[in-house]
């Protein structure tokens, strides 16, 4: 792998300061040097390094998606995801993994998989170079109860293969289930603590007993795994804090007590609200039968309002809110994930700078990689985007593949920047 020297770039380093003009040298898979220069001033090239003249383009850390479902297949229902055969499903996941990297997500946190081993296999295949994809933490299926979110079995077809999630009842079954996923090698156990209105169990309902949850957490910790929860209801959010569940997805309904709890433990938790799901279900899913009438009956507009209010309050209290979540449905297709940053600015009250930090510097610890990831600093891992435009002025440029000029992961270009100048039409073979 050749060393790479980016010159004449505007560097957003993940520290929250205004970007500065400078050079970045990548050696191997790490950032070896970051230098401030005057605009237009060039440093001499480093011997042997490939030089990329950025011409003032915006250089930033690769982004971290905090709530990823590679195996959701851009379909309108859980059942339609589940019915894809495993062979096609794994190829789908491989294709989607590449798409995320293409769009600048150099790290993704798996938030549940649709069949037991999909996430683990994809993570391993990325790591051993069989396929191309972001850094990835692999999740289990969603662990749920009979009749809860993720139990898609029909009464006359009770076979577990028909279930989107892993269905358990009682502490013993929970323990067995967690152990099975630990055996498969997941990084994260995903547990559905609350309902989800579209599946028939309202979002404000909480389905597990305290005992079942504590067995899940205990067993996960015994294997050194992380627990992440689908938690929309107030009780489920509080339960996450009380039981030490590190990753809280959604957190739509927070009362004062929940906000206080989260604030008191704000360095122990990550919130990824997945606002895209709520926003697009409420506003952009009529084509799939979710007309305003239908979503009102499901109470989604009220949940959207509540979620926005909760996120605004959590932001004020300094709780880390991260982008990503539930892309992979028909009305939230994979690859459009950077819309979350726009939503953060538009609805949650974040500045573009905060939104950018939520996708970079805050992502390092979310990936369990501390400060090695999410910064353009000497010694950090070289996950680097080169962007045509200024995301601090217009956060939506990150949604446009053509504006992301290049994507580097671990010191290697996944997408190299285009060569300037007219392309010669003549190629010489030999």
């Amino acid at each position, binding site marked *: 792998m050749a060393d790479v020297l980016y010159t004449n770039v505007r560097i957003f380093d993940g520290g929250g300061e205004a970007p500065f003009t400078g050079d970045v040298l990548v050696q191997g898979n790490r950032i070896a040097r970051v230098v401030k220069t005057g605009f237009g001033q060039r440093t001499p090239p480093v011997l042997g390094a*490939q*030089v*990329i*003249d*950025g*011409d003032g*383009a915006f250089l930033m850390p690769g982004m971290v998606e905090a709530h990823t479902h590679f195996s959701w297949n851009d379909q309108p229902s859980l059942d339609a995801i589940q019915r894809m*055969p*495993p*062979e*096609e499903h*794994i*190829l789908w996941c*491989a*294709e989607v993994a590449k798409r995320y990297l293409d769009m600048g997500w150099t790290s993704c946190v798996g938030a549940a998989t649709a069949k037991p*081993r*999909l996430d683990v*296999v994809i993570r*391993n*295949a990325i790591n051993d170079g*069989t*396929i191309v994809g972001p850094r990835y933490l692999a999740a289990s299926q969603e662990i749920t109860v009979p009749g809860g979110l993720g139990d898609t079995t029909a009464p006359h077809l009770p076979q577990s293969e028909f279930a989107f999630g892993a269905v358990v009842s009682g502490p013993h079954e929970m323990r067995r289930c967690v152990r099975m996923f630990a055996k498969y090698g997941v990084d994260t156990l995903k547990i559905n603590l609350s309902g989800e209105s579209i599946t028939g169990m309202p979002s404000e309902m909480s389905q597990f007993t305290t005992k079942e949850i504590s067995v899940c957490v205990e067993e996960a910790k015994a294997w050194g795994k992380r627990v992440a929860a689908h938690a929309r209801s107030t009780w489920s959010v509080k339960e996450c804090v009380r039981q030490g569940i590190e990753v809280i997805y959604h957190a739509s309904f927070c009362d004062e007590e929940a906000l206080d709890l989260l604030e008191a433990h704000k360095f122990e938790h990550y919130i990824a609200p997945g606002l895209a799901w709520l926003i697009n279900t409420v506003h952009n899913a009529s084509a799939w039968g979710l007309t305003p009438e239908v979503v009102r009956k499901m109470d989604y507009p009220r949940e959207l309002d509540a979620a926005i209010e909760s996120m605004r309050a959590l932001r004020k209290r300094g709780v880390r809110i991260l982008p990503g979540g539930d892309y992979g449905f028909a009305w939230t297709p994979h690859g459009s994930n950077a819309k979350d940053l726009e939503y953060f600015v538009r609805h949650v009250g974040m500045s573009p700078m905060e939104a950018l930090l939520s996708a970079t510097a805050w992502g390092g610890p979310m990936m369990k990689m501390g400060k090695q990831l999410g910064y353009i600093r000497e010694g950090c891992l070289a996950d680097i985007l*080169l962007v*045509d435009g200024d995301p601090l002025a217009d956060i939506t440029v990150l949604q446009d593949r053509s504006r992301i*000029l*290049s994507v580097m992961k671990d010191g290697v270009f996944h997408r*190299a*920047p*285009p*060569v*300037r*100048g007219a392309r*010669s*039409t*003549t*190629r*010489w*073979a*030999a």
Partner: protein
Amino acid sequence: MADVLFTNVRILDGTGANPYTGSVLVAGNRIRQVGRGAAAIRPAGAQVIDGAGATLMPGMCEAHTHFSWNDAATLAAIQTMPLEEHVLWCAKVAKKYLEAGWTSCVGAACAKPRLDVVIRNAINAGQIPGPRYLAASQEITVLGGLGDETLPHLPFPEFSFGVNVSGAEEMRKAVRLFLKYGVDSIKLNLSGDNFTPQSPAGTTWMTDAEVAAAMDEVRLRGKRGTAHARSAASVKQALRHGIDVIYHASYSDTETLDMLEAAKDRVFVAPGIAIIYAMLNEAEPWGVTRAIATDMGYQHEWEAALESLRAMHRRGVRILPGGDYGFAFTPHCNNARDLEFFVKYLGFTPMEAIRSATQYGGQIMMRGHELGTIHDGALADLLLVDGDPLANLAILRDPKRLLAVMKDGVFARAPEIAAQRRWERAA
């Protein structure tokens, strides 16, 4: 897809004709025009590739491909790979074949029921890169035959490399299941194999009623039967039942040769002799010394196979390259070695070897009129090779000598620009 004009290339057109200098214009996914000599074809907006005298030949066809063999040393080690990993493995191998110049592959059996079908569909849908592909079933075998990898205390079908049937009705059901999955061919193990000592190469154990039931179903749905047939009896059985693709054919007698010759316009033989050679000469790192291989019967088979195949070649039976790459001792993408073996051991001329990989390849892909040779209107599956394969066939398995691979008008490997590369890239 931009049009491409190859100029200044030596065209080896796959028909057996001598190569000539000329130009080839590709428009869309087809060869629009082949020009002889220096009479230039006007580029008219096409991307021009100056071949500087390199050889342009049709993409090659592998006649006996197992994407799902995972370069392991045993059938059990192939079978124990979990399903998800196995699919990704197949996808990776498919891409490697294409990049190695095999623009078409005939699936000859897969290790789990749907692997071949899923990979073919994913290639056709553009989801993964890979050659044109005909998808096979698993090997259908009988209890105790080649491919039955179940253990007495673990009789579960998931442990078995092939599908075990007993009796015509079980055969019919197994074949129907694979046809439901969408295979292009049904693979029957009509003979044993020295790789599995409980059912060596000389044995033939499927009943005519079983084979007939399989071929009934195959014909009913317009598909193709293929056979693993090493023994003379199994080759004859395949021919009697209308199986067109015969793998191995190591042992033959005069009757077998006469039957093959009589059927030579419909029959293809892909012997896969690389595995026999490798077991005898190159498998020691995996514990198979020459003495062990000889004990297993490989020396005897090698001698018989060379004699049989030479005789077939003399009688004009089409013999095609490929076969049983994907084991530890015959790793994937060394497949072009078969062409060298054909010349060295079977009495082929280099031109005949090339033709077996190109023109005959188009025929076994059932698209002989548009695949496998370079002519106006043919599908644009092309290789640009640095050097003359007729002078040295070994260059076909050297990735550095393969300058470009085009499938269906699109470069799977684009030629490098020979002009000095500019290191400076600008955003």
